[in-house]
C-alpha cells in the first residue's frame, strides 16, 4: 500500500465567535482582571471538526460546500496559516498554497518587480523565478506593461499577472482556494489547462471552489463539507449532483404582478409561469440536456376567437432570444373560441441550451386577422428566470462551448489513406 501524500486525521478548528472581527484591548483586559465576577463564558464555534481524508500522489481532489461551510478553513490549516485546535495532518513533499491571486503584490512596484516579490512569497527561489521570468511574462500577456507600476493595471491585468506567477510554481502538493473564479473566461480556461498540465506531471492537488464546472473538469474525487464536517465524499459526479440537488430552491414563483403586463387591458392576461422537473416540482435550474417543462397560466378577460401564445427564451449573458416556442407549432394545442376564465397550458421542449442563465418572455396574441401590433396583446418580459446547469442529469460535466446551443451531432469520416 502506498503512503498518502496528504493525510488528514480528525482535524478540527475552534474559533471564538467574533474573534475574527473584533479584537481585545489591553485596557479591557486589565480592567477585567480587576473585576471579581467570573468572565462570561465565551461562545465558540467549530469551523471544522472530525475531518479525515487521504489524498494520494497525482490525485486531484475537489472540495465543495456553501459559504462558511469550512472549506477555506481546511485550506488555511493545510497551508499552515493557522493551527489546528485538534487532530493532525501530514504532507509529503513541497507544498504551495494558492489562497488568493497576487499575494504580496505591491501597487507601487512594477510588474517585473512584483513577479519576483510574489514568486518569493509563494515559495519560489530567486533562480527559479529568473529562469521562468520570460515564460511568466508571456503567460500573463502583459509584455508591454511589465515595467509599469501595477497600480496602473486593471483588475484583469492584476489577476493575469498573479496567476501567471502562481502557474509557474512547481510544488509537489498544490492547495488552491477559489482563485479560479477570478479573471475572464478565456484566461480562466488557460489557467485550468495549466493546472491540468501540472497534474499530468504527478502533482497532487486539492482545490476548493464554488465553480462546480472547474471541479468536475479537474477532479476525480470530491469532498462536500457542510458545517465543518465532511458530509459526502466520492466520485466528483456523484458528490456534485448530490450537492446541486440539496442547494436547489424548493419553490419559485413566476407570479406575474400587475405592473409586469405591457398592456394591462389586453384580452388575455398572463397570471403565472412555472418551470417544473420530471416529478412536477417547481425548479429554477435544469440540468443540461433536460427537457424544459413550462406551465403557463393565463386569464381570458374577453372572449377570443383564437389565442396564440409564445414563450421566448432569452439568454442573460447577451440578451439573445435563443428560441421562441409557439403553441400553434403543435397542431393539437390550437386555442379557439375561448370564453372568459382561467386556463393553464403546459409546454415541453428539448432545446440543448448551453449552460447559463435564461429568462422566459411571454406573448399572448388574440385573433387571427392582422391586428394592430400590441393593441390587445399581452406581453410579459422576464416572467421567470432559470439556469441551465453545467452538468447532465447523470452528473457528466459539459465542456464549455461558445455557441448558444449545443446540439448533439453525428460525424462521418470518408476518404482513404493515400498509401
Amino acid at each position, binding site marked *: 500500500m502506498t503512503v498518502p501524500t496528504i493525510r488528514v486525521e480528525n482535524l478540527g478548528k475552534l474559533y471564538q465567535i467574533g474573534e475574527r472581527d473584533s479584537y481585545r484591548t489591553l485596557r479591557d483586559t486589565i480592567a477585567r482582571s480587576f473585576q471579581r465576577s467570573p468572565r462570561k463564558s465565551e461562545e465558540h464555534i467549530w469551523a471544522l471538526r472530525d475531518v479525515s481524508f487521504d489524498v494520494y500522489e497525482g490525485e486531484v481532489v475537489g472540495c465543495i460546500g456553501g459559504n462558511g461551510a469550512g472549506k477555506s478553513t481546511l485550506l488555511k490549516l493545510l497551508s499552515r496559516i493557522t*493551527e489546528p485546535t485538534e487532530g*493532525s495532518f501530514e504532507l*509529503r513533499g513541497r507544498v504551495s*498554497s494558492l489562497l488568493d491571486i497576487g499575494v504580496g503584490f505591491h501597487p*507601487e512596484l512594477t510588474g517585473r*518587480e512584483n513577479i519576483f516579490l510574489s514568486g518569493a512569497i509563494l515559495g519560489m527561489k530567486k533562480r527559479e523565478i529568473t529562469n521562468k521570468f520570460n515564460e511568466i511574462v508571456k503567460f500573463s500577456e502583459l509584455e508591454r506593461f511589465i515595467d509599469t507600476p501595477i497600480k496602473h493595471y486593471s483588475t484583469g491585468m492584476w489577476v493575469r499577472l498573479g496567476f501567471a506567477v502562481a502557474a509557474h510554481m512547481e510544488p509537489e502538493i498544490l492547495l488552491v482556494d477559489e482563485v479560479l473564479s477570478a479573471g475572464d473566461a478565456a484566461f480562466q480556461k488557460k489557467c485550468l489547462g495549466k493546472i491540468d498540465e501540472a497534474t499530468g506531471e504527478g502533482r497532487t492537488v486539492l482545490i476548493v471552489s464554488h465553480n462546480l464546472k472547474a471541479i468536475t473538469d479537474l477532479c476525480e474525487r470530491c469532498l462536500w463539507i457542510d458545517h465543518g464536517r465532511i458530509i459526502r465524499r466520492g466520485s466528483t459526479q456523484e458528490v456534485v449532483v448530490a450537492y446541486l440537488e440539496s442547494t436547489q430552491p424548493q419553490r419559485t414563483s413566476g407570479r406575474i404582478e400587475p405592473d409586469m403586463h405591457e398592456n394591462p387591458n389586453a384580452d388575455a392576461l398572463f397570471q403565472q409561469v412555472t418551470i417544473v422537473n420530471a416529478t412536477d416540482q417547481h425548479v429554477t435550474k435544469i440540468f443540461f440536456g433536460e427537457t424544459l417543462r413550462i406551465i403557463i397560466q393565463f386569464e381570458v378577460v374577453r372572449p377570443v376567437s383564437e389565442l396564440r401564445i409564445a414563450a421566448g427564451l432569452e439568454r442573460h449573458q447577451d440578451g439573445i432570444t435563443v428560441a421562441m416556442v409557439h403553441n400553434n407549432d403543435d397542431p393539437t394545442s390550437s386555442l379557439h373560441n375561448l370564453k372568459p376564465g382561467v386556463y393553464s397550458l403546459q409546454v415541453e421542449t428539448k432545446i440543448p441550451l448551453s449552460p447559463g442563465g435564461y429568462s422566459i418572455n411571454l406573448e399572448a396574441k388574440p385573433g387571427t386577422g392582422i391586428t394592430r401590433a400590441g393593441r390587445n396583446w399581452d406581453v410579459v418580459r422576464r416572467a421567470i428566470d432559470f439556469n441551465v446547469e453545467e452538468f447532465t442529469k447523470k452528473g457528466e460535466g459539459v465542456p464549455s462551448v461558445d455557441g448558444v446551443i449545443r446540439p448533439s451531432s453525428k460525424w462521418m469520416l470518408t476518404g482513404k489513406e493515400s498509401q
Partner: protein
Amino acid sequence: MKVETSKRWSLPSFKEIWQYRELGYFLAWRDIRVRYKQTVLGAAWAVIQPFMTTVVFSLFFGLLAKVPSEGVPYPIFAYTALVPWSYFQNTLTQISNSMVLGRDLIGKVYFPRILIPIAALLSGLLDFGISFAVLLVLMIYYGIAPTLNVVFLPILLLFAIITSLGVGLWLATLNVMYRDVAFIAPFLVQVWLFATPIAYPSSLVPARWRIWYGINPMTGVVEGFRWAMLGTGTISLPTFAVSGIISVLLLVTGLVYFKHYERTFADRI
C-alpha cells in the same frame, strides 16, 4: 511534515528561517523600493530625521540649557548618538506594527513570520548607512577624527539590532493581541529617547547610579558610538555588560513569546 497543535514554548527554528532567507531579502528589498518610490525625498529622509532632531537639540539643550557635551561641539555630540538611535527607533516602530500591517500576507501564505521584522532590520541598514555617511562628513567639517575604537562599531550596531528586534517582537505580538498597544509604542519610544544619553552625556548621571543606567540597553550603544567615533567619555565595562545582558534577555524572551503566538496571528488579525 506532520502538523498538529503545539503547546510548548520554544525558540523559532533557525533552520527554517535560514531556508526562507531569500524571502527575507525580498521583503527588505520591497521595503526599500517602496519607501524610495513613495517619498519625494527618498534617501534624504534617512538624514532629515536625525538632522532635524540635532538642530532642535542643539538649540534647546546645547545653546539654551547649556547641556555639557564632553568637549566636542554639541551638534556633533547629539548627531553621533542620533545615528544609532534613529535606526533603533525606526526599526522598532516598524517591527511593532509589522504584523498588523502585514495582515494580508499573513492571512494568505505561510512563511516564518519573523522574516517581516528581520526584513525591517535589513532595510533600515540602508538608512543607517546614509546617516552614518553624513556623520563622517560632519566630522570632517568639525575636524574630528574617529578613534581606533571604530572597530567596535559593528558590535555596537549589533546590540542596537538585538534590542530593536527583542523589544519589537514583544510589541508586535502584543499589538496583534491588544490593539491599543499601537498607541503605547510611540509613547514608549519618546520616553526612551530621553532615558538614553542622547541630548546629554551619561556623565550627568551620578556615578553610583550609572550601572543601573545600563539597564537601558541603548545607553551602551549610544555612549559606545560616541566613544568610538568622537573619543568622548569612557566606556564603563560593567554598565556595558548590564546593557548586553538585558539586550540578549529581551531578544530571547521576545523570540519565544513571538514564536508562541505566531501561529495564532492569522486568526487574530
